[in-house]
């Protein structure tokens, strides 16, 4: 009993901080989502609105489009970063000249703030100034203008994110690959397994926890991306790259529609949790059940 008290006492500071910085803001957003409140409305005071804000977002084409674009963005970046990250991690397990230097340079994007990444890519992609449009036009005759062409803008944001975050995936998988036991691989080789069979039946199952953790982290990051995109495209052209984070920012800050912004934020949080839960059920729980059976 005494040790239980000590435990709670030691936990107390963390719990208080979590309550103040996690629970209280969440409750505030929750309450705000049930009011009509715009700082520059004829009546700027909050008024209870019931579920009006939630009803509004169901019919909000811009919100639905932003969700769809965000899902596409997250799918492309997470999948690409996982594949590229794994390949780079395998590469870094082998020996080659200047490996240390390569590893350092490869990790540099992680140290750059997202807003600076966006600014850098903006400079890279502005016609008349940036090298990308110049070289694409000079060597391939390709008209590259992310302010005018929606697909170009979308895939440029995808490539920018891959450039920025693949090193994180690489380092995580490299750590996991480095800690794999040798015996199962030797056993598989002795049993005559092909390289693909070894990858599929030995490497992947061992890497599953690391892959899942990486996918969760990267997916949640991708779903709430704002800074880089805001700096590179401002969400344009039109709504092409107005991912959900940017949409919420526009509703809450320039538009000062706090009630609706809170509702959109909560629904986005809910969708993120559902997505993660589906992934967990699909990739972890079912697997665990199979193992038990």
């Amino acid at each position, binding site marked *: 009993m005494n040790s239980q008290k000590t435990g709670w006492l030691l936990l107390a500071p963390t719990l208080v901080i979590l309550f103040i910085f996690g629970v209280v803001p969440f409750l505030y957003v929750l309450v705000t989502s049930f009011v009509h409140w*715009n700082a520059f*409305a004829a009546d700027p005071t909050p008024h209870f609105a019931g579920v009006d804000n939630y009803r509004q977002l169901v019919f909000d084409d811009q919100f639905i489009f932003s969700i769809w674009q965000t899902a596409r963005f997250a799918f492309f970046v997470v999948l690409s970063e996982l594949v590229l990250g794994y390949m780079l991690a395998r590469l870094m397990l082998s020996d080659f000249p200047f490996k240390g230097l390569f590893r350092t340079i490869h990790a540099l994007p992680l140290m750059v703030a997202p807003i600076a990444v966006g600014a850098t890519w903006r400079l890279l992609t502005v016609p*008349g100034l940036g090298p990308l449009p110049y070289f694409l036009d000079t060597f391939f005759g390709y*008209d590259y*203008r992310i302010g005018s062409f929606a697909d170009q803008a979308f895939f440029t944001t995808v490539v920018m994110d891959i450039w920025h975050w693949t090193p994180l995936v690489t380092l995580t998988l490299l750590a996991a690959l480095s800690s794999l036991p040798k015996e199962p691989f030797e056993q598989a080789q002795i049993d005559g397994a092909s390289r693909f069979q070894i990858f599929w039946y030995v490497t992947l199952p061992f890497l599953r926890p690391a892959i899942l953790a990486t996918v969760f982290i990267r997916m949640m990051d991708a779903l709430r991306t704002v800074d880089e995109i805001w700096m590179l495209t401002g969400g*344009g*052209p039109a709504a092409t790259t*107005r991912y959900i984070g940017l949409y919420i920012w526009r509703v809450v800050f*320039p538009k000062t529609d706090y009630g609706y912004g809170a509702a959109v934020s909560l629904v986005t949080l809910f969708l993120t949790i559902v997505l993660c839960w589906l992934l967990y059920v699909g990739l972890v729980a079912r697997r665990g059940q199979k193992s038990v059976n």
Partner: protein
Amino acid sequence: MRKFAASTALTAIAMMVGASAAHADFWSDAGKAYEGVTIRGVSESTPPSNYVKDVLAPAFTEATGIKVEFEATSWDQMYDKAIKDMEANTGIYDFVYIEQDIVYSYLSRDFLVDLTKALADNPDLKAPTFNFDEFTSFIDYFKNDDGDVFGVPMEAFVKIYLYRKDLFGDQEAKDAFKAKYGYDLAPATTHQQYKDIADFFTQWGKDHDMELWGTTVQAHSGHPASWYEFFESWGPTFGVYNWGIDASNNYAASVANGGSMNGPKAKEALAYWLDLLNDAPPEATQSTWDEVAATFAAGRAAQGLVYGENAAWIAADDTKSNVVGNVGVALPPLSDGVMAEVEGGTGYIGYYDGGAFGIPHSSKNKEATLLFLQYIGQDEVQPGWAIAAPRITHTATYADPDVMKMDAELDGYYTLLKDKGPLFAGAPPYPFHAQVREATAPFFYEAIIGQLTADEALDKMAEAAEAELTKLGYRK
């Protein structure tokens, strides 16, 4: 240019030294009570703001002992930070930039200190060298219905038609233009002329293997700058005023309800503006006001509507501009009847932009900040400021010899500002400025990239504007 910059800086410093010597007693005496106090402000990073940050704030600190932390940031961030601070009443900022178009929103929320009243209540803090009457009529935008002032103007300029004098004066180009269009090449006074010139120089650039296009277009497809270029600069030249919203008619925006946002003039204007993209450099759809100025300064456009705050460095700073000495200034082209409406008091030909510094009620250092605002609002500091960044807020500044010299370098921009400034107007007095902009802008961006036609976009925008105004409680 270096020689010019050095002499400008020396002149500015000399004037401030002179000013502070003449009124040393007031500034040092008034500052004594606040010595060591730090006041904080936020503004958009523009040439006029940077002059305050780099020159006026340090001079004020030297004169009074009051430190100034000046945050010059992006336009969006500036609004975010200022509004959040004032809304939450946190008191992080002691002075904030009030752009002319947002002042009505701030006044509606009673965010700002009444400076007239504050000075009347604190006569000890009233600087002998500061007088509201010395400002141009631009200060009227920062007054309430009683005539009290809520912001000290720190910049005022018009969005002006700039053209390349070297290209317009090139004999070969003049001959070719006359042969093709049947009239002389000169700064456009009508939209058709402007389009002809744009077409001509775009083709001229191709024929002469030059990186040259016919016009700048501030057409960022994801930033409100494009929305502003249309509603505040091009729309009025077609006779579309106040964004096409009729405040006296229940804030109607659509033609069906008595507004004109989707009226024939607006549709003609938007179709015309979108067509200009064919004569604009490829960066146009990624261009805000900054990039438009950079494009013109790089020599990539023959003409364009450019914010006046950038005119000085484009015309005179050879470390940044490729067109020094070749910049001409004129009024924007107009549709028939617009000038008559302006003279009749019902219209305007473009945007008279600018801003002021105001003190939020949330400030914890109101008195010290009041001193700072008066310091930057003195007549004495204005000429140096006007030369560093072409903004004029005081009537006397026009007659300053250095400003007149600069006026010649800027092809008469200051003279135009003085004589023709009243033809331009600030944003309409709407407290829902950003809200309606954000509600309508998505359709505008779709028009820029061709997902909607001009007509479709404006119909949707008028509908969205009315829906937003109803939601906000302005439209019944």
